[in-house]
């Protein structure tokens, strides 16, 4: 059996075993009522009455992360470009980004609540995570152009801006898209945490409410929703990354 086929089968087996044990533990109540069987969770997910609630919550959170991506990418790209074009700013920008990344997300919540609004807070918290990862990725990507390339541009008489626009920025594209993919889990977490500070709806709200009202199955549903959408988006971003490497690599 070829290695590729074997790994695929093993992988499926692994996931299958996990799902089977989930169901078993739930049915036999081995972990108490806090671990419902997989079938119960899936049943609730498929419930027509619940679905609008799930759809709204998921939609809201995904919207927030999308917005977070836009802001975070803009800020990360901007600061990285600035630090690249003005080398004295390099170290300070690195430190600033590192410090911003070290601020606990739960602390960012109240800050953005005052600075922006209840609705914008999740996107803002999400954007900080995206900002840091994009900043680090683009900073290293901008240095990807080799000395030989830079010499070429010097000989062709290109000024600093032209060189940035036509050489360094395109060279940084693969790193940027890699960064976008890597930032996804953190962005989602940021949005969920941001919602806890007064957002009207979203996955984070769903989770908190389920937790406080002891609705176990609903809680697991929310987790499953988060995982499902996370995997899907991650898969899409991976495809995007491959395309970027094919075009710019």
């Amino acid at each position: 059996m070829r290695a590729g086929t074997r790994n695929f089968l093993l992988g499926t087996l692994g996931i299958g075993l996990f799902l089977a044990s989930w169901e078993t533990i739930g049915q036999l109540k081995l972990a108490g009522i806090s671990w419902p069987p997989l079938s119960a969770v899936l049943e609730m997910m498929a419930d027509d009455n619940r679905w609008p609630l799930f759809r709204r919550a998921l939609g809201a959170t995904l919207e927030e992360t999308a917005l977070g991506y836009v802001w975070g990418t803009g800020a990360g790209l901007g600061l990285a470009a600035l630090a690249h074009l003005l080398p004295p700013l390099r170290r300070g920008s690195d430190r600033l980004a590192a410090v911003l990344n070290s601020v606990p997300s739960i602390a960012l919540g109240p800050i953005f609540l005052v600075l922006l609004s209840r609705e914008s807070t999740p996107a803002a918290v999400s954007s900080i995570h995206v900002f840091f990862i994009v900043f680090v990725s683009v900073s290293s990507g901008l240095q990807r152009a080799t000395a030989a390339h830079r010499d070429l541009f010097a000989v062709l008489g290109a000024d600093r801006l032209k060189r940035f626009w036509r050489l360094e920025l395109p060279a940084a594209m693969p790193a940027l898209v890699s960064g976008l993919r890597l930032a996804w889990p953190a962005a989602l977490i940021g949005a969920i945490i941001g919602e806890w500070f007064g957002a009207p709806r979203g996955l984070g709200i769903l989770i908190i409410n389920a937790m406080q009202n002891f609705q176990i199955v609903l809680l697991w549903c929310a987790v499953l929703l988060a995982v499902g959408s996370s995997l899907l988006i991650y898969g899409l971003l991976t495809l995007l990354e491959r395309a970027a490497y094919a075009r710019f690599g």
Partner: protein
Amino acid sequence: MDAAAKRPLLLRLVEDYWGVFLLLVAWQLWVIANSFNPIVMPTPTAVLGDLVTHPDVYLRNVGITLAVAAFGLVAGMLVGTGLAVAAWFSPVAAGLLNPLTVLFSSVPVVALIPVIARLLGYDTSTVLAIVVIITFFPSFVFASSGLRSPPPGAEDLFRVLGASRLSVLWRLALPAAMPNLAIAFKLAAAHAILAAMVAEFLMGTSGLGYLFAKTKSDFQTEQAFGASAVATVISATAFLLAGWVERRVRERYA
């Protein structure tokens, strides 16, 4: 110490931290300009004041969060590396584990906190479990790839020398994986503390996260921000220290 010798340090500090400094100044001015009630948004100076006047509160909670984070970090790295070694020994284990870990790594950790709290209880054990989970995935991924990146020709060398599998693991694969493990450690160190804090925030037991939640709801906003400031400093320092460790490891093993 004369002025000339002192200047490089000051210059270095300015060079490194102008961004942070600007941010703090902007914060101070923003609060003053908007005449914010300290309950809504305190100034940085007020936060600093609280830190200085109530050190015991902070120290007590920092100790707890730091201990849990450190313990969870080590445990998570051991579990992650251990499973990576198991996958290295057995292709069957590797085939089973790899997709499972991809699946698990896409679960937003914060979503797991309520679930695990129900299973393990609303206390420190949940916080520990969360830190282990968050450090386990990067360790597993980086250890797995590191174990499989020995220096070129070294695998053939060990076969020719008649080395046992255990010998290959101990003398070749594990040392070769050290640089990668150092990277995982760097990433996990900063995240461990922040993850512990989020878990404490939701659980309401003890530690910096709990301090933040409690003081925020008691309208002691300076102290809430103080807790955040302490967490930020520790997290950033952990990241820097781990970076130093990474450089040392790279020098020795790469």
